[in-house]
């Protein structure tokens, strides 16, 4: 019998994983469909003609796009194990930090393939962002308190993808001594039963991002040609 929930994804995408974590936390049964984003299928292009990206959630023929929008849809449709807090102000804070986080994810990624002063600037920007996130986390077990929630999922890239970027970009952003709260949160997050069983394979992920980094570097700094 066909599953009523389908998720189109790509094995390296932190945006896809946050949706899978949400579905698993809620105990929602779903079918995962791997998409080759370098050779986009008709299925993907029909479901997301505007952005042509994953994740795409299909629920009972309804198509939901954009990872943050999908997370909220999941939270509102399956009410068990709520992801977002109840209080409007706390919800606003979670949404704010989720958006902030994604902006800084891109900064950290840029830092991997830039060089010289541009790299230094991107690294500085990323560290500043981590400092603000460290302050937001403080002594809480998870971002919203005792239990894992929306913001942990939205910032989950820090726990796993950021170390990958540090490695391929030959840089250190998350020094333990400087970020005790984030370091402690990372270890809790990665050992959570749902999260630890749903992470991309580390070595392959490093190879993938290293290749991407090199490709970006070469296109951004084209070799000088002889006349």
């Amino acid at each position, binding site marked *: 019998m066909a599953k009523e929930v389908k998720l189109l994804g790509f094995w390296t995408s932190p945006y896809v994983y946050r949706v899978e974590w949400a579905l698993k936390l809620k105990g929602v049964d779903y079918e995962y469909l791997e998409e080759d984003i370098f050779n986009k299928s008709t299925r993907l292009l029909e479901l997301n003609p505007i952005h042509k990206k994953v994740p795409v959630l299909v629920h009972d023929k*309804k198509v*939901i796009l954009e990872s*943050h*929008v999908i997370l*909220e849809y999941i939270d509102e*449709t399956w009410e068990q194990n709520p992801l977002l807090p109840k209080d409007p*102000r706390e*919800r*606003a804070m979670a949404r704010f930090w989720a958006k902030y986080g994604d902006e800084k994810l891109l900064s950290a990624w840029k830092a991997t393939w830039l060089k010289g002063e541009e790299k230094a600037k991107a690294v500085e920007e990323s560290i500043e962002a981590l400092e603000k996130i460290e302050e937001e986390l403080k002594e809480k077990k998870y971002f919203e308190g005792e239990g894992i929630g929306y913001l942990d999922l939205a910032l989950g890239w820090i726990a796993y993808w950021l170390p990958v970027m540090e490695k391929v970009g030959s840089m250190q952003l998350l020094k333990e001594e400087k970020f005790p709260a984030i370091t402690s949160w990372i270890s809790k997050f990665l050992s959570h039963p749902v999260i630890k069983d749903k992470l991309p394979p580390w070595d392959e992920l490093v190879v993938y991002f290293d290749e991407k980094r090199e490709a970006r570097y070469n296109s951004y700094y084209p070799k000088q040609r002889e006349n």
Partner: protein
Amino acid sequence: MAEELKLYGTWVSPFSRRVELALKLKGIPYEYIEEDLHNKSPDLIKYNPIHQKVPVLVHNGKPIVESLVILEYIDETWKNNPILPQDPYQRALARFWAKFIEEKILPLAMKVTNSEEKEKEKVVVEMFQLMKVLEGELNGKDFFGGESIGYVDIVATIIAVWFQVTQEVIGVKIVSEEKFPVLFKWIEKLKSIDVVKECIPPRDKHITYVKARIEAALLKSAPN
């Protein structure tokens, strides 16, 4: 206990004006504080240390920032005259279109204003494509929200008003009646709503402001 609600904004910011529109639609009383962004108040910096931008909504002393986040906060705190639909799927669609406007249309609009002549044509074509997509979403409805204005209409006032002014100043027509009849009609309907009129910058002042900003930008980028 009296509610204390303050909104920090500017008369010309589409982002703070959209928050005002939401508050007015719900009939929520608030104190408005006009910010001078060239001389930011200590309060603004205190309430929005990360971005130091408007709008900032301060409710009982606690700040909420980012206009889309503020709109959802308002809708969740004051439940009369809902801005977002009730159904989760309709809400997801509304959020998607708001993001489309913020993350795809707005940055491209800035490129239209700021790009050199030779690049401008290409950017304008891209813009037409995006606007066609947005127009498709209206699809027979009076407003994005259906029979009355909702979240997406509020977010899209930037297109209905601010784009029109900039386009008039720079002489590039994006939303013309011939090219986008449905969108054009929506703009007319939106601008005729009283509460929306209250949240639009005075036209002449707005035109003067945009002209001055564009001139200043040209001066900054002119070769010595």
